[in-house]
């Protein structure tokens, strides 16, 4: 038994040292003025969504034109916004009414016309935009919305379930125990695996049948960099404020981890797409990073 364990350790170590990651570019996104948070890169890496510290409003940055477009001014619009596979942007706004309850409204922003449309009327309770491979959707407790009948594959979390919707067939999985709930589900670029975060467990990789393929550790906000790697956030706190925060590169099979930024850098909220990585800092400085991975 000891020999097997030793062989496994040596094998893992060889795999671990077999990768070599170098940062080839790391620069502030200067066209973005003011503190910016919750960045989301499009799949091709050509566009970036971001918002303010309070998630009020939603902005779209185009790497080609270096222009920033205001998508929405509404409260909450910047939290959880996604790029749909159809090129539209799906987001949820929120409003507090006289009864002091929060009502959420689903929106679709058409980049071609530059206009937003309400796709799910205001309702009390949770609502989240969901990216699909060929469109977008809105999921809420009472009613849902899809941009088309067939939006391809979409993944998201609700409570302690990860939901995988393939061609309108929804399957719910709870592959690991997590009382507090699941978060941050995303589909790998090849569409074969799902990464999500389970509170108390960390980042989990499953296949489309809900089988656990890997556990990547207790990090947050996983986002696929390519089919083999993800970026994630690693924070520590003292119960009241953050004491460290960094961006990690994680291999999807759990065999490799690399620190892209130092723990003291207070970098957070990573997103990836099209070979780019974008993250922000605790004081809202958006940074573009490019890396090279040698196998």
């Amino acid at each position, binding site marked *: 038994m000891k020999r097997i364990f030793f062989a496994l350790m040596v094998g893992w170590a060889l795999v671990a040292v077999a990768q070599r990651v170098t940062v080839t570019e790391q620069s502030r996104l200067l066209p973005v003025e003011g503190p910016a*948070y*919750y960045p989301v890169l499009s799949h091709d890496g050509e566009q970036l969504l971001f918002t303010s*510290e*309070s*998630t009020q409003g939603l902005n779209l940055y185009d790497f080609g034109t270096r222009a920033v477009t205001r998508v929405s001014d509404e*409260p*909450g619009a910047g*939290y*959880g916004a996604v790029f749909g596979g159809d090129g539209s942007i799906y987001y949820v706004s*929120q409003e*507090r009414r006289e*009864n*002091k*309850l*929060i009502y*959420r409204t689903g929106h679709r922003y058409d980049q071609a016309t530059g206009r937003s449309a309400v796709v799910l009327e205001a309702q*009390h*309770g*949770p*609502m*989240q935009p969901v990216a699909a491979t060929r469109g977008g959707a809105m999921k*809420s*407790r009472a009613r849902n919305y899809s941009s088309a009948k067939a939006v391809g594959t979409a993944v998201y*979390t*609700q409570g302690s379930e990860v939901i995988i919707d393939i061609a309108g067939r929804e399957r719910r999985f709870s592959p690991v125990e997590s*009382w*507090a*709930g699941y*978060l*941050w589900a995303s589909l790998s670029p090849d569409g074969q695996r799902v990464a999500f*975060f389970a*509170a*108390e467990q960390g980042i989990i990789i499953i296949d489309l049948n809900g089988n656990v393929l890997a556990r990547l550790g207790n990090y*947050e*906000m996983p986002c696929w960099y390519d089919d083999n790697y993800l970026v994630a*956030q690693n*924070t*520590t*706190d*003292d*119960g*009241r*404020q*953050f004491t460290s925060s960094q961006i990690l590169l994680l291999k999807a099979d759990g065999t490799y981890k690399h620190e892209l930024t130092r723990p003291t850098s207070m970098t*957070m909220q990573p997103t990836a797409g099209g070979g780019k990585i974008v993250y922000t800092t*605790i*004081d809202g400085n958006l940074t573009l990073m490019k890396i090279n991975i040698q196998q």
Partner: protein
Amino acid sequence: MKRFYFFSLLLMALVMGMGVKAAAQDMPHIYINPGHGGHDSDDRNVVVPPFASGDTAGFWESNSNLWKGFALQEVLRKKGYTTSISRLANQTSNDLALSTIVALCNQSGADVFYSIHSNATGAGENYRINFPLGLYRGPDNQPIVPESDRLALELVKVLYQNQSTVWTSNYATRGDWSFYPQWNNQGLGVLRGNNAISMLDEGSFHDYIPETYRLINHDYDWVEGFNFSIGADNFFGYSETLPQGIITGNLRDERVMRTATYVMHGADARQPINGATVRLLDLYDNELATTTTDQLQNGIYLFKYLDPGQYKVEVSEPEHFTQTKIVEVTANAVTYCNFDLKKVRNTPPEVVSYSPVWNDGDDPVLCNTPVVINFNWDMDIPSTEAAFEISPAVEGSFTWEDTNYRLVFTPTDAYDVNTHYTVTVRASAEHAGGTAMEHDFTMGFTTQERNHMAVTALFPREDVAVHYKSPIIELRTDAQVNGLNVYDNFHVYDKNGNELGYNRRQLKCGNSTSPYGFVRLPMANDFNVGEKYRLYVERWVQDMDGIHLAEEIDHEFVAVDAGEAKAEQVIYDGEQVDGITTGGSNVNAKVTAVTTHLFGSKAMQLAYEFDAEDDEPVATASFAEPLEQQFTAGDTIMLHIDGDMSCNELLACFEAVDGDGDDFDLSLGDIDYHGWRFVKCPVENRGTFRLKGFAVKHHTQGYAKNMGLTGKLILDDVLWSEGEIFESGVSETTLAGVTVQPNPSSDYIVASAAGYIRGVELYGMNGQLVARNGANYINVTGIAAGTYVFKVYVNGLVSTHKVVVVH
């Protein structure tokens, strides 16, 4: 009729049910974050007995936060709210990252986010406070998420109504950016990006130890959770979301105080009742519920979910009288009902021990000895103090200890010396239960012959000149000074009344091996030349027995530059010591040239160590040859002395030239000062003299007999000048403020000065000493009529006066 009654009830239930349902359709969703957990590094453990450090059964902020969270979730669900909670256990794995908690809250679609915490001062043990604080994201009064400030306010207002605790100030709400300015607007992690109306509650201060004990109690935590639900109701404008109420309270002894030394405010100073049985009764005394307070010094009890109406709460505990109160419970509210229990005291009070225990023939007691009387019961303070007598009467104060079982009487100043005192506690003294003693109690003691600490030497004395550089304050006493209260009692003020600081690291105090008591305080900074300063020593400077000074010291002195350039002729500059030999009797002495100097680059140092057994120890430093300069009567010798407060006498030794007069030693005064001093003294002897050296003479009697057995005397520039001549050849140098009267005199000549007079001498006009006294007067009734010179030694200087004796 029965059918009508049934339908009426059904209709009423439907109406009420519809009301609840109507609300339930759109009831708020509240996300509960019971703080951080795990009994680990980001948790807070306050160690209180009986729990050891790290014992998870003791106080941990994560424990109490979780219990509050459970209670809140339980009550909110009963009220129809939707709830989510971020943890259900207390392991490190449940201690979610702040950003994860925020994301879970946002995904849940919650309307309100409560993060439950308790506070700590983070200050020293003597600073403890307790009040509820609500924090929201953003600057004060400008919440990032609108209404969050209102949510915080509605909560802390309810928490502040908790009467089971003791609040030290009113509730507060703050924006976290303003409250934590050092975090540069980063604020609290669980509020960053949180889209719900959100706040972090610091319900009370867990490092205020009485509160620590309460927070260990689950019932107390449950009530805070319940109060959160009231806060939520108030925020959303709901009322009576729960058709039931609760009763809770705190049991304390009505007068017995806690014996602990931690900070206690208000009623928390009184002893909580552990292990009391609390029964809930209806008005017909039927028992509805019962509970028992724990053993953890909090006295908390709780009855949950009671229908509105009147109840009786009965509290019993073997050492206290049973007490019952009628209380009113209202729906969705807390009824607070505290009890102050009266202790059972079933025998008359009596004295069980006392001190000082003194019998005829015993050694006298210290003149500050407190009278301590221990009773068998906690005593009633007014009647006992009124029953206390001490004879002869002496002013003093009472203190009570051991929860009023012990009375201590301490004299304000001191008892008289060599006096027998009788103490009586008359039978009118009562214990706290109101029963008086059966008999008078009497004790007695006799005091020692010393009741105050005496000042044997002081620098600076009143009006003396103090060299401005590196000044030192020193008090010498007849007993070792207790260094603990020195800083509180020694004060030096500048001319504007500003108190000056000391170099505390260089403070020196005598210890048990010192031959005399002293405290030496180097000033932190130099004085300003020409300015007046004030020395104020409070009378509470004590020796090791607590005996203090008889009176305070309060006088002025002036700063000078002793190294000011002089016009007179320098006859020895101290730059070299070649040829100077040391001698004397029973002394080890050595002369060196040292760099401590006023002029040039060096000065002469005479270091000496006397044999304490020797009767007349003297150390001398003699030039190889007497100096060239000749002195005649009326000339003045002047020199610069760096004093070490040896209190030894310094003498200039003169040798007659070619037999013109007799060799003599001229006193330059006692070295009862620190730092440089310019001293001048007239030569009064008839003849022609040359300076052959100096001598240091130890006092074997009087104030300085234990001082100066070792010393280092440093001399720089010695000068000569011609002085004014009396007709008889004796010069008169009168110091300001020194008066001598009457003059002429037939019985006593008395000197007075603002400063301390160490002695007086009477010389004949031929320079011969006629009389000397260590006091301030000389009796001249036996001295022949004539003209004399009267010398007054004051503040280390000599004031010389011409006086006439008549008969």
